[in-house]
């Protein structure tokens, strides 16, 4: 696949509002049982008003954007900086752009992607990057 150019946008994805059910499912399925994501009493003990979403859930959503666009077998690197907390009821959307095309080891043609996830009120949740093979 060589039709990817610098500046190309990755088709964005928007996910359903984060519900307590979403967080309960992710807690069980991911094995991340940190109570701050599912137990409001625990969250309040630590000064939060409510449970917060798992950062890895938003990263998984970014992964879905990437693998919906290109096959997962082309994904070489995927990194995220967690920039903000996600509250129940917020809507996450994922976005990205091809920032650079270059040659890696063995002349493999690679694309560096700058990617981010944000809430419906335009707060950054994740700022990250990925590298795919073309």
């Amino acid at each position, binding site marked *: 696949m060589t039709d990817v150019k610098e500046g190309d946008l990755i088709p964005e994805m928007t*996910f*359903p509002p984060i519900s307590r059910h*979403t967080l309960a*499912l*992710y807690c*069980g*399925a*991911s*094995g*991340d*049982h*940190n*109570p*701050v994501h599912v137990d409001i009493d*625990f969250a309040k*003990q*630590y000064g939060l008003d409510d449970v917060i979403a798992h*950062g*890895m*859930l938003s*990263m*998984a*959503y970014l*992964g*879905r954007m*990437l*693998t*919906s666009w290109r096959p*997962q*077998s082309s*994904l*070489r*690197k*995927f*990194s*995220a*900086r*967690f920039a903000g907390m996600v509250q129940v009821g917020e809507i996450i959307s994922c976005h990205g752009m091809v920032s650079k095309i270059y040659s890696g080891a063995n002349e493999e043609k690679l694309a560096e992607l700058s990617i981010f996830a944000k809430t419906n009120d335009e707060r950054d949740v994740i700022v990250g990057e990925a590298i795919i093979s073309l």
Partner: protein
Amino acid sequence: MLDKQYIGHVFKPIKVPVELGRLKFFAKSIGENNPIYFDVDAAQKAGYRSVIAPPTFTMVIDSEYESESMPEFDLMGIDIGRILHANQSFEYFLPICAGDEIFATRRIKNITEKKAGTLEFVEIDSEYHNQEGELVATSLMTFVYRN
């Protein structure tokens, strides 16, 4: 303050079977709708041995360490309510499929302080090998501990 003597600590490796049911449940929890992530026939038609693990799935493998939450929390006496996940990165070499057995190793790479020790950053790196001994992925996690 976290004890810096733990820098370089290597945890006892774990061997984790990648179960089809676990992959299907994980796919459901992230709303995945591409059948290669939950339907064996669709995955095989796409050229995979079986259903494949999504890019963030190695974190699920990490949940199999024998500990209340994460092994470094038990080791260092970390209060889980005071941590925040700061950074996460993965590098990929080969797919992980249902039926694989993944051998995971985990190490405390570094512990650094910021803001006069009120925040500490802990870096954990992991390697994942499959049943053939092939390196399939690596990960680097950074979490912040609020003292």
